[in-house]
């Protein structure tokens, strides 16, 4: 039997005290309350580590970069140990055929009982030739590896929605994981990248409770994606008061007013940035004075400028905002009405005064 998480941790010289602190912190970050801490500890002490295969498709590795910076000093050690990360071509020492053999070994040994974490997505055009993994199209590797998996985690905007490589016109037909794989539970963890603690939190939840977290309509864990940036933003008071930065260097920007008018996408973006922040709670985009760009929302590259509140709508052909279309429409209708009214008045005048005897 594989070692339990606790055994691995102790072997690595982590004290029981530190271990229990980690359990309490994890319980808190998952929103489970203090009663869950002993349950997490118990699970980590008794359960065998679940093997995880971490695949990389079309991506930029920002998810991995975020993940390995998981803030709490223990978290990265714990999670990297917890995961039993049997395969991750970016992080592992093995390479070539030796590395590829691991996937096969895990698939056989833990059939139906391993997790596939996917970073990036498979491009489908040209039979998937835009992304080659070990000499074969990534889409084939992905389908094979997921076939016997217990669950699949889609890391980041790439795996969840497609991200920049799927932005219009999407030349490689980069496709999110859930549109390629069916019949398996898939957890979308969007963001470009997702917050490190969100990533470790999702994994910890799955290993601890042996089930996937509760998901919303778009397959995202509710505990991290249940509210908008705007709902928890520390500048929300300025929004409600009607106090906005109107230029990047004005008085409002200096005073830390709401960035809504500067195109902040906080009101339309579901993520935990405003409550968990980044880099161990050091800061996050709005705190550093730049609006949210909505990187955890579907197709955020194709939704107009990052710096406009009322953004362009492209499905109507030429790029235009609702306001420009609306003002043009209302203006045209108004002008047409004025012209129509003038002609009506003329017609009426002619009818009543011009030729009274011709009518009736």
């Amino acid at each position, binding site marked *: 039997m594989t070692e339990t998480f606790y055994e691995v941790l102790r072997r690595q010289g982590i004290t029981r005290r530190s271990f229990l602190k980690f359990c309490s912190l994890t319980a808190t970050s998952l929103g489970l309350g203090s009663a869950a801490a002993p349950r997490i500890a118990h699970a980590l002490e008794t359960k065998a580590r679940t093997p995880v295969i971490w695949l990389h498709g079309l991506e930029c590795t920002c998810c991995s970069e975020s993940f390995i910076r998981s803030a709490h000093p223990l978290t990265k050690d714990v999670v990297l140990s917890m995961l039993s990360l049997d395969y991750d071509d970016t992080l592992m020492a093995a390479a070539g055929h030796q590395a590829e053999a691991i996937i096969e070994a895990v698939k056989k040994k833990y059939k139906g009982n391993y997790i596939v974490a996917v970073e990036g997505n498979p491009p489908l055009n040209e039979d998937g030739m835009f992304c080659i993994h070990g000499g074969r199209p990534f889409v084939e590797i992905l389908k094979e590896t997921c076939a016997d998996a217990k669950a699949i985690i889609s890391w980041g905007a790439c795996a969840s929605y497609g991200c920049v490589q799927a932005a219009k016109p999407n030349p490689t037909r980069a496709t999110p994981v859930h549109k390629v794989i069916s019949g398996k539970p898939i957890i979308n963890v969007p963001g470009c990248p997702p917050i490190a603690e969100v990533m470790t939190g999702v994994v910890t939840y799955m290993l601890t409770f042996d089930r996937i977290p509760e998901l*919303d*309509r*778009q397959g995202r864990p*509710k505990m991290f994606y*249940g*509210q*908008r940036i705007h*709902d928890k933003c520390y500048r929300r*008071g*300025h*929004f*409600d*008061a*009607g*106090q*906005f*930065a*109107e230029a990047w260097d004005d008085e*409002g920007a200096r005073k830390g*007013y709401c960035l*809504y*008018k500067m195109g902040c*996408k906080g*009101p*339309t*973006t*579901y993520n935990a940035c405003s409550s968990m922040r980044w880099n161990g709670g050091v800061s996050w985009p709005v705190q550093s004075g730049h609006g949210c760009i*909505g990187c955890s*929302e*579907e*197709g955020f590259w194709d*939704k107009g400028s990052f710096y406009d*509140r*009322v*953004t362009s*709508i492209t499905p109507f052909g030429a790029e235009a*905002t*609702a*306001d420009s*279309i*609306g*003002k043009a*429409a*209302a203006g045209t*209708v*108004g002008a047409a*009405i004025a012209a*129509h*009214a003038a*002609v*009506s008045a003329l*017609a*009426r005048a002619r*009818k009543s005064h011009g030729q009274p005897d011709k*009518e009736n």
Partner: protein
Amino acid sequence: MLSQQDMLEAERHGKQVRSIYVYEAPVRLWHWLNALAMVVLAVTGYFVGQPLPTQPGEAATHFLMGYIRFAHFAAAYIFAVGLLGRTYWAFVGNHHARQIFRLPITNPQWWSEVFFELRWYLFLEKTPKKYVGHNPMAQLMMFFFFTILAVGMVFTGFALYGEGAGVGNWQDRLFGWVIPLLGGSLQVHGLHRLGMWIMMSFVLVHVYAAVREDIMSRQSLISTMVSGWRMFKD
């Protein structure tokens, strides 16, 4: 069928009486409340997307966006509840109450009336016809640019409201599916705003057509929506 019946009714009554009761009290009350709600919704909605200039002083002394959003949501509830009530009245009210909910599209006579009205508005017909309810052209416009659009605005509006009310709230449970369907929150905001502009363009046409018909056609319009009685001029 509806319009043919309507027209015959108008002709028959026109010969005998000079007025006929068309819009029952609930319809009239709804019309004016709805009009008021729409004005509030359009103005506040515009300023939710493009807020007023920034407020000076301390944040604690202001609640401008809060009040604007409150007015928007309050008016939205009046609009939505009104629409529900109006739908109910379509079932229990007189047959004119059903006009904006149902188009007699299988009736060729009705279509020819639509084209007659189109020609009338294009100054190609010299003498207008008499109608007790909406003329067929008005009915067509009303159906698409008010009834359908209003339902769309209620659905997108409550879906967006559900985002603030929170996951699991009834607004979210009933209407939350609209957001992924239309491509995300930002998209829904944009479409909701576009809907406002279309609705306002419709209001312009509606008010203009009512005033024009009141003057140029053979029956009363504006006073009918106040008193309920359609007066015929000849």
